[in-house]
């Protein structure tokens, strides 16, 4: 059974969704880790969940990044442990320096809460090995600060090393400015670190693991199935 450690900051609000997906939908072991803890405990996967840690004060993720637990998350990631940051979790991982770039205010200045389409750009990561390159997923977003930015050299490096994992696209997989919900550079919705064991993404796969709760889409399940495949678990759901 795979062990999921799910961080909880003051203001996290997708921690229970992540727990429900890991524990009840995929039948795995899951436990919450309060941000004041200093050790993750036994874990195969760490999820940094969505929400508004510390009320997004200063910058999204900027304060959470210094919570006591983050030292162990950085240690875990540097040891090759699997870390999935969703939405605010992506922001925290960027602030912590585990992923390059930053998430700015949406170009529209509006909070974006809707389903978007994502094209899988790399299907060889621990998070997407059950998907195919070019596959289109329908997954929810809910964020005000999802506008991914990095300098041109970093963006080129991300593309050259195939570290852009998901891009916002049309339902048919075409990449257009109209499909970009927040102004992200090059329609980037999710990236991995150089080693491939840390993924940050703005859309919420944990909200779309059951069709009945995911506006008819269970496409987010592919991220969990990939993780379980990667750690050698038989996939139940």
């Amino acid at each position, binding site marked *: 059974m795979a062990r999921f450690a799910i961080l909880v900051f003051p203001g996290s609000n997708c921690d229970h969704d992540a727990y429900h997906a890991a524990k009840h939908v995929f039948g795995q072991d899951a436990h919450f880790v309060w941000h004041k803890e200093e050790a993750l405990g036994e874990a195969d996967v760490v999820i940094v969940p969505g929400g508004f840690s510390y009320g997004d004060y*200063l*910058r999204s993720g*900027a304060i959470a990044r*210094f919570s006591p637990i983050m030292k162990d998350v950085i240690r875990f990631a540097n040891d090759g442990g699997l870390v999935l940051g969703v939405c605010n979790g992506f922001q925290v991982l*960027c*602030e912590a320096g585990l992923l*390059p*770039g*930053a998430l*700015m*205010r*949406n*170009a*529209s*200045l509006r909070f974006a809460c809707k389903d978007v389409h994502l094209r899988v750009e790399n299907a060889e990561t621990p998070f997407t090995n059950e998907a195919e390159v070019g596959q289109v997923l329908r997954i929810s977003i809910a964020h005000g600060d999802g506008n991914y*930015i*990095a*300098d041109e050299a970093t963006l080129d490096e991300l593309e050259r090393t195939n570290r852009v994992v998901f891009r916002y696209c049309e339902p048919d997989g075409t990449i257009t400015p109209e499909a970009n919900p927040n*102004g992200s550079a090059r329609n980037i919705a999710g990236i991995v670190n150089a080693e491939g064991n840390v993924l940050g993404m703005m859309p919420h796969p944990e909200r779309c693991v059951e069709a009945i709760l995911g506006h008819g889409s269970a496409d987010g399940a592919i991220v969990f199935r990939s993780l379980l495949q990667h750690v050698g678990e038989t996939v139940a759901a």
Partner: protein
Amino acid sequence: MYTAVVTVTLRPSILDPQGKAMQHALHDLGHGAVQQVRAGKHIEMQIDAASAEEAERIARQACEQLLANPVMEDFAVTVEQAEGTPAA
């Protein structure tokens, strides 16, 4: 005691949608002369330091570690002796 005032702004190369929105609103109000608006953050800190130089060093460190994100932001720091406190 010193007062450090930190101004954090988006780097010039980065489009500032808040500034754009304010500029549009100002144009709607008839202020066509306003050519550019950039938004930022104003942060004040009271710093207990032995000298203005030390207070500035602490303030700059605070900016580098936490208050500004160098991926997208620049910062400026000014330090003054806080009102009503003796010179160090």
